[in-house]
């Protein structure tokens, strides 16, 4: 089939070719092989199909719900439900748009690579910038169109009601305007953050800080997911004009929608004004970033790596002159050098590598999302002592929280340190491996795993335990969880014989369904056993002491065994990644 002549003319021009190149680059995260990138495109197309099917399924469910509400005598329940669902739909769209924007944020502005590769070619800079913008527009437009198309039947089913106050067509049109505005705001917010960082930071800091901010925002968005699904319940808060909603961006766009429908409610109009202001501000920041980058492209991108942009260079230089020593570590420290080497290498890599940080924080955020959503659902935020009908369940959930967090954090840290990083640089570890150093190096891994999989979750869960069961009970439950954690660290490091990031980890080595089922079963068993032990310890002091002692002894024996094994068994290394993609076995 021949492409239309107009399209061919566009795609054959340098701008068209560049747009197509930049658009393709949005699907390239730099970690996939060509075959993997191809699979990712297919997976994306499958996800689009699934989204449309899901939209239709939800439309049917919502049609039933709104038919019942429309049959009621009073319009109030319908209006409250509509406000809640509008809030949910707009937040859902914003979230789904923000996630891919964040994923492709490295491609939002022309970068040094573009400059070095495209600069020597006979292509004007304006063409590069226009192509970059067009690619971004196409990419986000594709997501926005699919999302809005899949949600339109749902919004239509919500709008057919005698209480609606306007025609269904009108309501769908206005919802689409508000929702598209919300999507644009999501894209602008992420782009503005990236733009400001590009302009302000030195190239050295840009990579590490951008990675950190990207991972944190990604984790935050993941934590938001279950709460977005609770938004339909906030219809009454919207109807009562609760002031805290001013800090919830999706509420601004619900205000915009209502203002466009002709509402004269001052509260909704105020929210609409906020939406427009936020849009204008985001657009302004992005426009300024693009213009500054366009005008000072060479200056910004080719400045020495350690030098910031001219507008911040003075401050930067001032701060750096204070740093003179190489290593502030205490030379009399008892820690062996091999331990330090691996400990620092691991922590620096987790701090700087976008991929590893994304896996670590993204998976951990799932744990935070799961536990916090369940706690909020059980009334943790508005608990009222014994008057809370869910008091017993809440206590169970509070005891469950540290174990759930430990399990998911454990999985995430194990996955993050198993992923490779510059595998061809491994030779330095291979050259320096000794029997004496090996167990120290593995102890460094153990410490990082213990801190992240046990220490952090316990610190995060302590306020929950304290608020639900008081400090004494919370302390006992935390101690039991810590002892269980000691055993859990052994499970995480079972058969671990590598320096972090020096071997390839390929998901799909086993049948993926088997892995998921096994992981889920392990999670349920671990959390249930942990809660059981903690509850038993909370019931009687003698039992608490006995459980603590037994767990302590088991953890100590396992650790001793582990260290002995590390001393004897050589480390694993992989200098070459597999050249063939592994079958997922779906």
């Amino acid at each position, binding site marked *: 089939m021949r492409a239309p002549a107009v399209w061919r003319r566009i795609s054959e021009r340098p701008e068209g070719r560049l747009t197509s190149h930049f658009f393709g680059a949005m699907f390239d995260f730099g970690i996939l092989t060509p075959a993997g990138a191809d699979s990712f495109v297919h997976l994306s197309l499958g996800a689009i199909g699934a989204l449309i099917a899901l939209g239709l399924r939800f439309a049917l469910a919502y049609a039933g719900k709104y038919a019942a509400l429309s049959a009621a005598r009073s319009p109030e329940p319908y209006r409250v439900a509509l406000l809640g669902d509008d809030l949910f739909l707009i937040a859902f769209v914003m979230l789904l748009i923000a996630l891919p924007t964040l994923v492709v944020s490295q491609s939002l502005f022309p970068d040094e690579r573009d400059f070095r590769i495209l600069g020597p070619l006979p292509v004007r800079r304006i063409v590069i910038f226009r192509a970059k913008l067009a690619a971004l527009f196409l990419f986000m437009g594709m997501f926005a169109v699919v999302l809005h198309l899949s949600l339109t039947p749902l919004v239509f089913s919500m709008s057919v009601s005698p209480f609606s106050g306007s025609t269904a067509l009108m309501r769908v049109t206005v919802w689409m305007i508000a929702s598209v505005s919300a999507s644009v705001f999501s894209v602008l917010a992420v782009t503005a953050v990236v733009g400001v960082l590009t302009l302000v930071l030195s190239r050295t800091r840009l990579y590490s800080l951008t990675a950190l901010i990207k991972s944190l925002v990604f984790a935050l968005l993941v934590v938001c997911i279950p709460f977005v699904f609770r938004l339909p319940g906030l219809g009454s808060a919207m109807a009562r004009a609760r002031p805290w909603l001013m800090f919830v961006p999706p509420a601004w766009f619900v205000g915009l929608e209502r203002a466009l429908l002709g509402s004269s409610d001052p509260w909704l109009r105020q929210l609409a004004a906020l939406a427009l202001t936020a849009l204008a501000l985001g657009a302004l920041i992005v426009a300024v970033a693009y213009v500054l980058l366009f005008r000072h492209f060479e200056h910004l991108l080719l400045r020495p790596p350690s030098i910031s942009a001219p507008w911040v260079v003075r401050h930067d230089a001032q701060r750096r002159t204070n740093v003179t020593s190489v290593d502030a570590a205490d030379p009399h420290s008892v820690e062996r050098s091999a331990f330090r080497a691996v400990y620092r290498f691991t922590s620096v890599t987790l701090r700087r590598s976008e991929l590893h940080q994304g896996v670590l924080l993204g998976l951990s955020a799932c744990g935070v999302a799961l536990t916090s959503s369940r706690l909020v659902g059980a009334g943790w935020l508005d608990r009222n002592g014994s008057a809370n009908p869910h008091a017993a369940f809440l206590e169970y959930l509070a005891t469950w929280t540290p174990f759930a967090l430990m399990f998911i954090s454990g999985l995430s840290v194990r996955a993050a340190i198993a992923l490779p990083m510059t595998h061809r640089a491994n*030779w330095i570890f291979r050259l320096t491996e000794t029997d004496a150093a090996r167990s120290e190096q593995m102890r460094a891994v153990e410490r990082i795993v213990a801190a992240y999989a046990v220490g952090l979750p316990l610190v995060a869960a302590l306020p929950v335990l304290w608020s639900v069961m008081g400090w004494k009970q919370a302390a006992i439950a935390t101690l039991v969880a810590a002892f269980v954690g000691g055993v859990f660290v052994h499970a995480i490091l079972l058969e671990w014989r590598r320096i972090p990031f020096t071997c390839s980890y390929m998901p799909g080595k086993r049948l993926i369904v088997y892995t998921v089922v096994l992981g889920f079963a392990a999670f349920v068993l671990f959390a249930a056993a942990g809660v059981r032990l903690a509850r038993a310890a909370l019931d009687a002091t003698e039992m608490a002491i006995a459980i603590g002692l037994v767990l302590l002894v088991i953890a100590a024996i396992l650790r001793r065994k582990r260290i002995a094994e590390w001393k004897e068994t050589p480390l694993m290394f992989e200098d070459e990644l597999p050249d063939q993609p592994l079958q997922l076995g779906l």
Partner: protein
Amino acid sequence: MLEARGLTKRYGGFLALDRVDFHVRRGEILGYLGPNGSGKSTTVNAVVGLIDPSAGSLWLDGIHMLDDPEGYKRRIGYVPEEPHLYTHLTAIEYLMLVGRLRGLSEPTLAARVPELLRLLLLWDSRYSTMASYSKGMRQRVLLAAALLHNPDLLVLDEPFSGLDVTAGLLFRTLLRMFVSGNRMVLFSTHRFDMVEQLCSRVVILSEGRIVAAHDVAALRVTGSPSLEDIFVRATHQTDFTPLARRILDVVEGS
């Protein structure tokens, strides 16, 4: 003295090294020449202990590599051909990592690392991750890492690629002074000029075998063939004129 006896490496059915014998004496820089794919990097990888030879043995000062592999590796400094580094680290972080892996104490590292960075003109970029370094800068980091623990034997695989003229001159002087302290250098390269200027002896490798071994000083005697002539003859290189002509024909469209 470093001694390789009957060094052989097979990858499946492919023979990468075939019974290679050579030695590097103390106070000597041995040039290791050969075309691409001749087995130079395989030899280097075997000497530094990154790969196990299929047959043959390596001895350092009379001690078999397998008798004390850790002690053997501790006495070697290595600069690989490609600057494979953890580029998300800064030069300081990388050198500290290497130093700690080599078991150097913190005060020793605190004294040596900044000094090496200053002397190798890397001090100004000490806060930048090595992702932003040029190839020459990365080579300098690798040289600093190879020297950090004061090794007896330096194994260099094309160490001059990417270096500017000044750094190249510094490296050459440094290598001469290094071996004058009764130490050894195994210098694998493609460059005849470097071998002629630096090495006392040269070994030429082709298709996994040693095809020539010469005293470089003897080559400087008037009337003797140049190193390039010896190389071309030993490795059966042909006249490149027809090939060069064909390349130009392709781009000129004739």
